[in-house]
C-alpha cells in the first residue's frame, strides 16, 4: 500500500512537471546586464564577433554604467533571444539611453523590466501560477508520503526554484499544535534537507512496546517518556493565497563574474562591484561608475575579458495559506506488571513455589489523535536567466610606474681596460599584471604586441671626458709649480728651456650603455585595495656594458684621501624602460633624446640627485608613473622613477715621469718621456681640445699599462755613434716624446749634465695641493764608482741635479761597461709606482793640453 502511494505521488509530480513544461511561462524572465553608457565617448571600442561582443577599453577609462534589461540575452554563448527581444519591442519599451546595441539588439531600462512584471502579473496571479506550475489551487490535501521535499517540490517546475518558510498558524482542519519540534524555516530552498525539518513518517525511527506481550510501534520520541506516532502527513491547501514577488531595480546586483583570469584584475567602481560566482553578493545598482585602471589583456582573449554580469532576483510567486499537516498519536511511557508464574501449593496447602511477577515497559497512547499543521510560505521562483555578460578587455596605456635598479656587484669597478660588463636587475613596477607575458595578436583594430623587445631598456651613466687646453712657453718653474700634463720641448731646434704642455678640465658626459640579454625572469602580481591584481613587479635581467674603460683621471676607490680625485667623482647609472608593450616610463623620451652621449653639467658629480634617477637634460628627478596609488604594497621604493646605481674607479696607473737632460756643453735640453698615455694621445698637447667619446676607434690606453711602463725605459743606445753625433753635433735636441723612441743618452765624459725630473700622476695631475698626485720621487745616478741616490720633494720637482760622468764607459769595441744610468722612481698615493730609466753612455778618450806661453819672474826681491 505504501509503495502504491509513492507511485501515485511520483505520477502526480511527473504529470505536474510535464504540464508545467508545456505551460506558458511569464513573458520574460528577469534578464539584466550592466552596460556602459556612451561607451564610445569614454574611449571604448566595441568589438562584435558573431553573436557576442566585447569592449576594448584603454587603461584609465572611467565610464558610467547602468543596469539594464537585456531580453536578448547578449553574450550567453548561444544565440540571441530574438523572440523575447521582439516582444519588448512590440510592447513599445524604450531603449536605455546611451546604451549600445550589440549585434543590433539594444537594452531596455531595468525599471521597465520591474514594472513589466508588476503590471503584467496583477489580477491574474492565481491563474498565472496554475498556468506556469500546473499545480491546482483549490483546497486540497496532498499526501506527503514521499516526504516533505518531494511533496513541496511539486510547486516548482524545472528551471524554477522554490523556497519555504514557516510562518506560524494552523489550518482549520488541523488545528492542533503538534509535539513534533518543528524548526522554523526562513526562505530555505526546498531541498531534501527539509525532510528532517517537517514531521513525517520517516521521522518515526524509534520502536517502543505498546503491550505487555511485546507488540511494538515506530514512534518519534519527543522525550524519554513521551513519543508520537506521525501519520497521514501532507500538504494542505486551504484557501490558498498567491502573490507575485516584488522586483525592485535596486535588487539587481552587478558583479564581476569569477572564473577566468581577468576576473582577478582589480576594477574600480562606485559602488564597488565584487567578484562573485553567483552574483548574489553583487553590488546593487542601477548606476555605477567604473574605472578600468588595470590592464587585463594577457594574450588569451577569452581569459582577458572582464565579465560584468547582473544578478537578477528571481521572479515568481509567494504562496501562503498552505500548511504542512499531519496527525499525531501521543504515547506516554508506562509499565505493566503481571504474574508470569503462579504460586504452587502442596496438598497440605503449603506454598511450594511462590508466584513470579514481571514488570515491563509499555507505552500507552493518550486518548485521541491530534491533527496538527504548520502554515508555510512557499516561494516559487523562476530564477533570472543568466543574461550573459558584458565583457571588457582593458589594454595597457600607461608606462611603468617605478623601478629599482641594481647592478651586480652593487658598485662595480670600471675595468682597467676595455669595456666593463656587469649583470643588472631592473625591478619594474607596472600596472599591467601580465607584464611578463609575450604575445602579438590583433583584436579589432588594435594590435597587442607585448614582448621583452618592447622594453627598449636603456642605461645611462656619467663619464668624464676632458677639455684640454694647450699651454706654451712654459719655463722650468712653470712646469714645476703650474700643474701640467705631459710636457715637451716647444722647439727642438731652439736651445731654450721652453716647453709646451696642456691642462685638462673634466667634462662630465652622459653616455648610453650597451644593454644586452634582456629577459623578464620573474613577475609578481601586486594586489590592489580589493586584493585583486592591480599591477605587477617584474624582474628584468640583463647585462650592461660600459663602453668606456676606467676613467684615466678619476678615482674614487682609494683608501687614501689623497689617492682620490679631487673633487671626488661619482659615476652614476640609471635605467629607463618601457613596459613590455612599449609604453615608456616618465620622461623616457626626454632621456632617450640625448642620444648616445650628452655633455652636460648635470653629469657632474655634484649635480643632480645622489639617490634618484634624474633627467640628463635638466637634472630634474624622473617622477613615478601614473596610478602608483593603485598598488598599496609596491615592493620597491616609489618616491621617484628609480634609484641610481654607482660605479667605482680605482687608480692602478702609476705616475708618469719625465726627465729633461740639459747638456751644458751643447746647451741642448733633451726631453725624455713618453706619450703613450691617454692625454698625450687625445690632447695632442691641448690642440685637440675635447673629445667626448673614447669608445670609437683605438682606445689610447687600452691595455697599455705595461706598454707605458716599457716606454719609460730609455735604454736604446744601439746606435752609439749616431746618437753621439746627434746629441753633440746635431742641430736639434732629442725628444723621445716627439720621436716616440726609447733612445738613451750619449755624452762625453767630463761633461756636466743637468737633470730636471718631474712626475705627475693621472690622478690630480694639475692639483698642486694634491702634490700632482705624486707621493714620492726618488732618483739614482749610477756612475762608475757607485750610485748617487736622493729624493725629490714633490714641491721641489724640476730642481737642477748636476752630474758629471768623468769616466767613459764605452770601450773601443763599443761595449758598454759599467752601465751608467739615471733611474727615477715615482709613486702615487695609491701605491702605484713606476720606474724611469735613462741609460747613459759616456765617451771620451783624448784630452790634449798644450802650453802656449810660459813666463817667470822672481818675486821675492
Amino acid at each position, binding site marked *: 500500500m505504501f509503495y502504491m502511494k509513492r507511485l501515485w505521488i511520483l505520477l502526480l509530480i511527473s504529470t505536474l512537471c510535464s504540464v508545467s513544461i508545456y505551460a506558458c511561462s511569464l513573458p520574460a524572465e528577469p534578464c539584466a546586464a550592466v552596460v556602459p553608457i556612451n561607451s564610445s565617448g569614454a574611449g571604448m571600442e566595441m568589438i562584435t564577433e558573431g553573436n557576442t561582443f566585447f569592449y576594448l577599453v584603454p587603461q584609465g577609462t572611467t565610464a558610467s554604467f547602468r543596469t539594464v534589461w537585456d531580453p536578448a540575452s547578449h553574450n550567453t554563448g548561444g544565440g540571441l533571444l530574438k523572440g523575447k527581444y521582439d516582444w519588448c519591442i512590440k510592447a513599445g519599451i524604450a531603449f536605455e539611453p546611451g546604451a549600445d546595441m550589440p549585434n543590433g539588439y539594444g537594452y531596455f531600462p531595468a525599471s521597465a523590466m520591474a514594472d513589466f512584471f508588476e503590471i503584467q502579473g496583477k489580477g491574474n496571479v492565481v491563474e498565472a501560477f496554475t498556468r506556469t506550475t500546473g499545480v491546482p489551487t483549490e483546497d486540497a490535501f496532498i499526501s506527503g508520503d514521499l516526504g516533505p521535499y518531494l511533496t513541496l517540490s511539486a510547486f516548482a517546475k524545472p528551471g524554477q526554484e522554490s523556497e519555504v518558510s514557516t510562518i506560524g498558524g494552523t489550518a482549520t482542519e488541523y488545528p492542533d499544535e503538534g509535539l513534533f519540534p518543528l524548526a522554523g524555516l526562513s526562505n530555505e530552498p526546498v531541498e531534501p534537507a527539509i525532510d528532517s525539518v517537517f514531521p513525517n513518517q520517516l521521522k518515526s525511527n524509534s520502536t517502543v512496546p505498546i503491550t505487555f506481550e511485546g507488540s511494538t510501534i515506530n514512534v518519534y520520541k519527543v522525550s524519554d517518556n513521551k513519543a508520537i506516532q506521525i501519520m497521514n502527513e501532507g500538504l494542505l491547501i486551504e484557501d490558498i493565497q498567491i502573490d507575485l514577488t516584488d522586483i525592485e531595480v535596486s535588487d539587481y546586483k552587478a558583479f564581476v563574474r569569477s572564473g577566468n583570469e581577468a576576473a582577478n584584475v582589480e576594477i574600480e567602481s562606485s559602488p564597488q562591484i565584487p567578484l562573485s560566482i553567483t552574483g548574489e553578493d553583487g553590488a546593487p545598482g542601477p548606476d555605477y561608475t567604473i574605472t578600468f585602471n588595470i590592464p587585463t589583456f594577457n594574450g588569451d582573449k577569452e581569459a582577458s575579458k572582464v565579465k560584468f554580469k547582473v544578478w537578477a532576483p528571481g521572479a515568481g510567486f509567494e504562496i501562503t495559506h498552505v500548511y504542512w499537516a499531519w496527525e499525531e498519536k501521543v504515547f506516554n511511557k508506562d509499565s505493566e506488571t503481571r504474574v508470569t508464574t503462579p504460586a504452587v501449593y502442596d496438598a497440605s496447602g503449603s506454598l511450594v513455589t511462590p508466584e513470579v511477577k514481571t514488570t515491563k515497559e509499555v507505552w500507552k497512547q493518550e486518548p485521541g489523535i491530534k491533527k496538527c499543521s504548520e502554515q508555510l510560505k512557499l516561494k516559487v521562483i523562476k530564477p533570472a536567466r543568466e543574461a550573459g555578460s558584458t565583457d571588457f578587455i582593458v589594454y595597457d596605456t600607461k608606462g611603468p610606474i617605478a623601478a629599482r635598479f641594481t647592478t651586480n656587484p652593487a658598485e662595480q669597478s670600471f675595468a682597467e681596460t676595455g669595456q666593463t660588463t656587469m649583470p643588472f636587475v631592473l625591478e619594474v613596477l607596472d600596472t599591467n599584471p601580465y607584464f611578463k607575458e609575450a604575445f602579438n595578436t590583433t583584436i579589432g583594430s588594435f594590435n597587442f604586441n607585448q614582448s621583452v623587445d618592447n622594453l627598449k631598456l636603456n642605461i645611462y651613466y656619467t663619464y668624464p671626458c676632458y677639455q684640454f687646453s694647450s699651454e706654451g712657453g712654459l719655463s722650468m718653474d712653470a712646469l714645476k709649480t703650474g700643474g701640467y700634463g705631459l710636457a715637451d720641448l716647444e722647439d727642438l731646434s731652439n736651445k731654450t728651456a721652453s716647453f709646451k704642455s696642456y691642462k685638462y678640465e673634466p667634462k662630465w658626459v652622459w653616455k648610453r650603455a650597451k644593454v644586452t640579454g634582456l629577459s623578464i625572469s620573474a613577475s609578481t602580481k601586486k594586489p590592489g585595495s580589493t586584493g585583486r591584481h592591480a599591477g605587477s613587479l617584474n624582474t628584468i635581467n640583463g647585462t650592461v656594458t660600459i663602453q668606456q674603460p676606467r676613467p684615466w683621471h678619476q678615482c674614487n676607490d682609494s683608501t687614501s684621501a689623497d689617492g682620490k680625485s679631487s673633487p671626488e667623482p661619482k659615476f652614476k647609472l640609471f635605467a629607463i624602460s618601457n613596459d613590455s608593450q612599449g609604453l615608456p616610463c616618465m620622461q623616457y623620451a626626454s632621456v632617450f633624446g640625448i642620444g648616445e652621449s650628452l655633455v652636460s653639467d648635470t653629469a657632474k658629480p655634484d649635480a643632480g640627485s645622489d639617490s634618484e634617477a634624474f633627467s640628463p637634460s635638466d637634472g630634474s628627478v624622473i617622477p613615478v608613473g601614473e596610478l602608483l596609488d593603485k598598488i598599496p604594497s609596491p615592493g620597491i621604493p616609489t618616491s621617484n622613477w628609480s634609484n641610481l646605481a654607482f660605479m667605482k674607479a680605482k687608480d692602478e696607473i702609476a705616475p708618469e715621469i719625465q726627465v729633461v737632460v740639459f747638456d751644458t*756643453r751643447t746647451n741642448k735640453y733633451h726631453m725624455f718621456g713618453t706619450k703613450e698615455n691617454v692625454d698625450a694621445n687625445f690632447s695632442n698637447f691641448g690642440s685637440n681640445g675635447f673629445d667626448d667619446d673614447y669608445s670609437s676607434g683605438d682606445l689610447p690606453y687600452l691595455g697599455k699599462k705595461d706598454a707605458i711602463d716599457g716606454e719609460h725605459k730609455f735604454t736604446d743606445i744601439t746606435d752609439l755613434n749616431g746618437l753621439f753625433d746627434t746629441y753633440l753635433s746635431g742641430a736639434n735636441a732629442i725628444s723621445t716624446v716627439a720621436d716616440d723612441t726609447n733612445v738613451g743618452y750619449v755624452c762625453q765624459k767630463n761633461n756636466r749634465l743637468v737633470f730636471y725630473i718631474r712626475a705627475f700622476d693621472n690622478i690630480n695631475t694639475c692639483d698642486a695641493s694634491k702634490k700632482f698626485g705624486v707621493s714620492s720621487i726618488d732618483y739614482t745616478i749610477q756612475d762608475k764608482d757607485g750610485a748617487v741616490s736622493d729624493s725629490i720633494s714633490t714641491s721641489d720637482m724640476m730642481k737642477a741635479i748636476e752630474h758629471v760622468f768623468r769616466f767613459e764607459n764605452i770601450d773601443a769595441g763599443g761595449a758598454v761597461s759599467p752601465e751608467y744610468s739615471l733611474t727615477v722612481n715615482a709613486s702615487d698615493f695609491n701605491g702605484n709606482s713606476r720606474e724611469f730609466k735613462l741609460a747613459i753612455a759616456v765617451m771620451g778618450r783624448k784630452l790634449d793640453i798644450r*802650453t802656449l806661453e*810660459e813666463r817667470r819672474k822672481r818675486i821675492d826681491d
Partner: protein
Amino acid sequence: MIETSFNWLQGGPSLLPNRKKIVGLRKGMAIPLVLVFCVCVMVFASSLALFRKESKQQNLGNVHFLQANFMAQSAVQMMLLKLSAFPQEACDAGVLSLGYCPFRGIIAGSEVSPNPASSNSDGLAQFFADCNSTAFPIKVPGLSADWKFAVTDFKVISAYTNPAERQLIISAQITSEGETRLAKGGMDVRKEEMIKTVKLTREN
C-alpha cells in the same frame, strides 16, 4: 895661463944668448923680481880664490832659483792635472768669471754676449784653491816647511765648445808661486812666480 907661466920660468932657448951681460944687471933685480913674482902669484892666487868664491855663490843662486822655480812648476802641474781631470768645472768657472752663465756652454761660432755684471771669479778661485802645498803638503824627507808652492791665480781666457769638432776648448792662464829657503850662501827665501798659458782641448 898656468902652463904659460910654467914655460916662462923654465926659460926658453930663444932667451938664453944674452945671459952674461944681463948677469950683472941681475944682482939687484932678483928680489924685486921675486917680489914681483910673489906679488903676482899672490894676486893670482887671490883672484883665483875670489873667482872661486863668486862661482860658488852663483851656483847657490842658480840652485835656489831652480828650487823655487820647480816649486812654482809644481803648482802649475797640479793645476794642469786638475784641468785635465775637471775640464768642465774649469770651463764653468772660467765662463762665469767672464760673465757668462756657467750652465750654458759657449758654442763656437755663436754670438753670446757676456754680462760683466754677472762675472764672478769665485769659481776660479775655488778651482785652484787647493792647488798648493798647504792643501797637499810636500812629503819629501828633510825638506823644510818653508818650501811652498801655490797657484795664485787662474784665469780662463776662453772656453767654448765646438760641437762640430766635438771639442771642448779652454785657454787658461795659470799663475803660480814657488818658494824655497836656502841657508847656504845667505840665500834665505826665494820666490818664483810662473805664469803659464795653456790650451786644453777635450775631444773624442
